[in-house]
């Protein structure tokens, strides 16, 4: 199964939850928000929502910038 995370293609043998994904990338303790295919995934549903084949996942955080 393939998915795109923040613009980079990744492969994984089996579907995984958003929480799994964040764990895999060492982001579990970071303050982040997640969208799959341009839909926001509420933090409360990270454990249940699955990343599926072909999904585009965005994981964002706050940075300095803008005005």
């Amino acid at each position, binding site marked *: 199964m393939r998915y795109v995370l923040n613009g980079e293609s990744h492969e994984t043998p089996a579907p995984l939850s958003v929480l799994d994904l964040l764990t895999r990338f060492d982001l579990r303790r970071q303050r982040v928000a997640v969208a799959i295919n341009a839909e926001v995934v509420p933090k409360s549903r990270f454990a249940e929502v699955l990343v599926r084949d072909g999904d585009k996942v965005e994981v964002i955080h*706050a940075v300095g910038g803008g005005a």
Partner: protein
Amino acid sequence: MSSSFRLGDLELHSRLIVGSGKYKSFEENRLALDASGTELTTVAVRRVDLTSRAAGSLLDWIPPERFHIIPNTAGCSTAKEAVLTAQLARELLGTRLVKLEVIGDPRTLFPDTVATLEAARILVAEGFTVLPYITDDPVACMRLEEIGCAAVMPLGAPIGSGLGIRNPANIRIILESVSCPVIVDAGVGTASDAAIAMELGCTAVLMSTGIAAAKDPIKMAHAMKLAVEAGRAAYEAGRMPRRLHAQASSPEQGLIDLP
């Protein structure tokens, strides 16, 4: 000393809003926020970099009990991007407030008026408290107010230019044309620019580069705090009329004679 104002549910006493970014360190950013007296700062949202992990986050340095942190949609160039960014940011930061920026030209960072109006309409409908960055165009500001934005944020001069309030006449016309708060966003390069914005009657000033790109950002942050307060107080005090000519402030009677 001066009265407070509201942006949606937020009640603010400081009329200075300070952006983040461009500081040499998170610590300098925080010290500048402290010196500015601001209660409200804006942050951008960006993809986490999966390859190189940054040591710490800006949010670790900005205690939410001292500063309201609201997201902006900096870098977005379509309404769709801006809306998704705002939705993600709301989830991330737990606030309905959003500084809406939809950039029409990456070179000059002028806003895209059409896309800003479109994004504002969607975000207001979704319950956001929208603070849109816009040109100093009275009609665009009127439309944003009609849509239900909580304030309008016309630019004083191009983002990052430090050119001050290029067109005070337009800001005055905007102030006549809308009832919502008018916050000058972008252009302030030094203290007097901020004072001028406030003297025109603006509710507040938002700035970023004017502080961060000063030689001593922390001292400049303090200068901006004083300037915003000075400009507000002068606005409330009601300035003297302008005249071409001198008029003596000393009584003309009682001058001494010389033998």
